[in-house]
């Protein structure tokens, strides 16, 4: 059995080939890995990319140095580079058009408004360049510090802040002109 220890301890066990430790580690980090991959690749490719990232984590577990970077930063870097490689191959990312489900339960009006806002946000995100999407995801979704996010993206801190600024402005601009009414067919 593997105690649910910290990332450092888990990684040592993963490097030694311990599958249970690997599963605990995956459960801990996969949601964030998937989030970043989804933002960059879309849902279907994201799962495959996350899977491949897990394989790389297993294969390179012995190379991670806790004194050099946090594990989450190291893992995000693997996912980010993998997604960029895939983006170079596929070039275009299909928009997810399956936005039909609407809830009729009590409080549904607010839910519908929120769902509508989230849809618009999703579409606005899709319109941003991949690096801007990654910058926003790392800072606002994964709540990384600027320096960690900059390390993941292999940027200087100043360049990362600049990218984040452009990304947020672009997102705001994408969201601004859209009408707030929800149409029902």
């Amino acid at each position, binding site marked *: 059995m593997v105690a649910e220890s910290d990332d450092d301890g888990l990684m040592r066990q993963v490097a030694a080939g311990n599958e249970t430790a690997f599963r605990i580690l995956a459960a801990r980090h996969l949601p964030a890995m998937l989030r970043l991959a989804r933002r960059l690749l879309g849902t279907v490719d994201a799962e495959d990319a996350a899977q491949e990232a*897990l394989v790389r984590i297993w*294969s390179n577990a012995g190379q991670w140095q806790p004194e050099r970077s946090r594990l989450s930063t190291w893992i995000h870097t693997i996912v980010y580079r993998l997604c960029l490689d895939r983006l170079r191959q596929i070039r275009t990312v299909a928009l997810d058009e399956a936005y039909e489900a609407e809830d009729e339960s009590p409080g549904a009006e607010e839910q519908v408004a929120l769902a509508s806002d989230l849809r618009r946000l999703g579409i606005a995100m899709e319109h941003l360049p991949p690096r801007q999407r990654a910058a926003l995801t790392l800072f606002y979704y994964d709540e990384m510090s600027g320096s960690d996010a900059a390390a993941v993206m292999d940027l200087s801190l100043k360049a990362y802040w600049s990218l984040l600024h452009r990304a947020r402005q672009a997102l705001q601009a994408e969201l601004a002109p859209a009408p707030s009414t929800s149409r029902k067919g």
Partner: protein
Amino acid sequence: MLETFGADFHRWPADRIAAAEALCAASATARAARERAARLDALLAEDRAAETVPPARIQAITDAALVRIAAQDRELDVDAIPIWQWLFTRPVGAVIATAMLAGIVLGLLVPAGPPQGALAASALFGTGARSLVGIL
């Protein structure tokens, strides 16, 4: 600054927070700008909260990764064995090895006749030439 770090001052660089708070206290325009930024922050937070991954999905992805890892390890095992053993571990290798063995056995069983070049030389120039061609 709002358009980079959002409305939550806790996420701002420490040396800018006091000035930002003072500005918001003094200026209605600054407060309105912060409210606009807060609306986007809230939407991003809702989006984050909505993005849950079911545990079964996590498990499925991890299982699939472990299958890939096992396959990768098997490949590495095959790559690590000596070349002569590799010949017998894969169908193509087995076919090549069998063909080579069959060639050697046939070569040993079938009696070797004089080289054709030697026969032609002896017909033209006599047995001395035949020996010379045999040596060559």
